[in-house]
């Protein structure tokens, strides 16, 4: 217990822990929609565009977050516009738009070398440098995203599953897509200083993919991913403190470890179920892919009648 309480004595750790908890949960929640909408690469790209925006904003004496938000949103809108007629696929559009914005940031940093150091946090994450202002921004983004996703659960789920049918059923899919892009951009900006631009994609995707392996129900996947994200953030922070490793990278590595563990458990469970569901009838081996109570009962009945016949013949 001591090793859990001891780091809490430091303010920088308390700030970092709270930030990791909120960012983990936030990315877990948003990540479910990111992977199901096939937007994993969008998340990765937007984080790079936001970095470029942060640098531009800083150079023009704007707020760091305002520049990142403006460039992130501009990137989301540009990608949407370029891919609209279907000639250019989204992965290509993301490659062009977001990498160009990232490159703009890198060029500005290379020209104005005086502030190079402060942007390392945005690139690789500096959770221990989280200020009260950063915590406020992360808290506001997390709370507003949770509220928006709660009230948009129905249109978001329908448009994610079947966008065209959702449109026919009267859902304004364009507004839903735009709102989600906005929430994703805000989540990325809030997470930028915690895990770093280079590792945000993993923070978004890993909890959601781990949760997907645990359940076939969408509502449960959302809850599981939210919890896994939060646990990953907290555990990653403690591990980074214990092993004196980079916090963002440790969080990502712990998430990957959870994913591997879940995949291994799923694999073993499926192997076990495969063996448990193998049946032999009259020398013919077969298998049922999922547990069906009535099938098991039928088999028990058939097996007992078969063994009865064998006993009868033996007599």
């Amino acid at each position, binding site marked *: 217990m001591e090793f859990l309480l001891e780091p809490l004595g430091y303010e920088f750790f308390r700030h970092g822990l709270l930030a990791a908890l909120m960012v983990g949960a936030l990315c877990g929640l948003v990540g479910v929609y990111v992977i199901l909408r096939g937007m994993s690469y969008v998340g990765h790209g937007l984080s790079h565009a936001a970095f470029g925006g942060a640098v531009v904003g800083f150079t023009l004496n704007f707020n760091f977050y305002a520049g990142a938000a403006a460039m992130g949103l501009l990137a989301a809108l540009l990608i949407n516009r370029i891919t609209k007629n279907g000639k250019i696929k989204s992965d290509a559009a993301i490659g062009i738009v977001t990498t160009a914005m990232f490159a703009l940031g890198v060029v500005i940093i290379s020209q104005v070398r005086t502030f190079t150091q402060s942007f390392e946090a945005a690139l690789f994450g500096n959770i221990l440098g989280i200020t009260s202002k950063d915590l406020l921004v992360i808290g506001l983004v997390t709370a507003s995203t949770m509220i928006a996703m709660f009230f948009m659960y129905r249109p978001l789920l329908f448009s994610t599953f079947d966008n065209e*049918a959702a449109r026919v059923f009267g859902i304004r899919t364009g507004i839903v897509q735009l709102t989600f892009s906005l929430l994703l951009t805000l989540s990325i900006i809030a997470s930028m200083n915690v895990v770093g631009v280079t590792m945000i994609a993993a923070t978004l995707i890993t909890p959601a993919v781990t949760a997907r392996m645990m359940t076939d129900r969408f509502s449960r996947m959302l809850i599981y991913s939210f919890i896994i994200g939060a646990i990953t953030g907290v555990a990653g922070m403690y591990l980074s403190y214990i092993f004196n490793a980079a916090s963002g990278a440790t969080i990502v590595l712990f998430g990957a470890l959870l994913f591997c563990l879940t995949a291994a458990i799923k694999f073993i469970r499926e192997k076990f179920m495969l063996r448990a569901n193998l049946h032999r009838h009259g020398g013919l081996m077969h298998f049922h892919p999922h547990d069906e109570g009535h099938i098991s009962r039928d088999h028990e009945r058939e097996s007992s009648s078969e063994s009865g016949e064998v006993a009868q013949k033996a007599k």
Partner: protein
Amino acid sequence: MKYAISLNNVTAGYERNVVFRHLSLEISTGQFAGIVGPTGCGKTTLLKTILGTHPVFSGNVLLNGCSVDRVQPGTIGYVPQLGSVDWSFPVTVEEVIMMGLYTDKRIWPWAGRGERERIHALAHRLGIYDCLHHHIVHTSGGQRQRAFLARALINSPKLLILDEPTSGVDIKTQHEVLHLLGDISNEGITILLTTHDLNAVASHLPWVICFNNGLVAQGQPHDIFTNEILTRTYGGDIVIIKHDGHFLIANNTPLHLTRNYS
């Protein structure tokens, strides 16, 4: 006469590719109609134009006398091609059906008691109650079709549109699905579907629309399934065998003439 679907001089298609020009087509209220035609003839584009998800270059589409972009949510039921569904998506049959209710004003993520009762009653009626909690990938082709049909019917729509509901299922399931649609049609719902299965259309649907980048002919199956009309629709030589009041339609071109085995 009031039409459920009315296309007036509609031209639609994609950039630099007009799929059909100046199409005028009316489908009366309560009709159970099927659109048939070769692959790539514009059946799906026509459906999407009627649904309002595909823009038209000119003309207008009216559903129950109302412009397609002003139709009240929930008045159209739509069943997409099952081939376009992401079967790995984490949803159960119950969640799929519930999506049909997402057009309601209710904002809570979970289903209300009334909604649950409606879902259960419809699932009972369509014979999918036992698999309500199954993941969609763990259901048969017939159950999948019924799940999406339930989603389309949950709002009690006036018009039901289905894109190839008989594709990818066996002949028995095809028969069951079309029978079920026939029963739904008897309740006064207008049904329009596309299909490649001429024999199923001939035996189950009272109205057929032959389409090939434009309207070729429409009418009752015994008027429409003639060698001349089907040849105009599909090209090639089509054989129609009438037996005991039923049609059997087959391609008369021998296989060795349609393929090059050299």
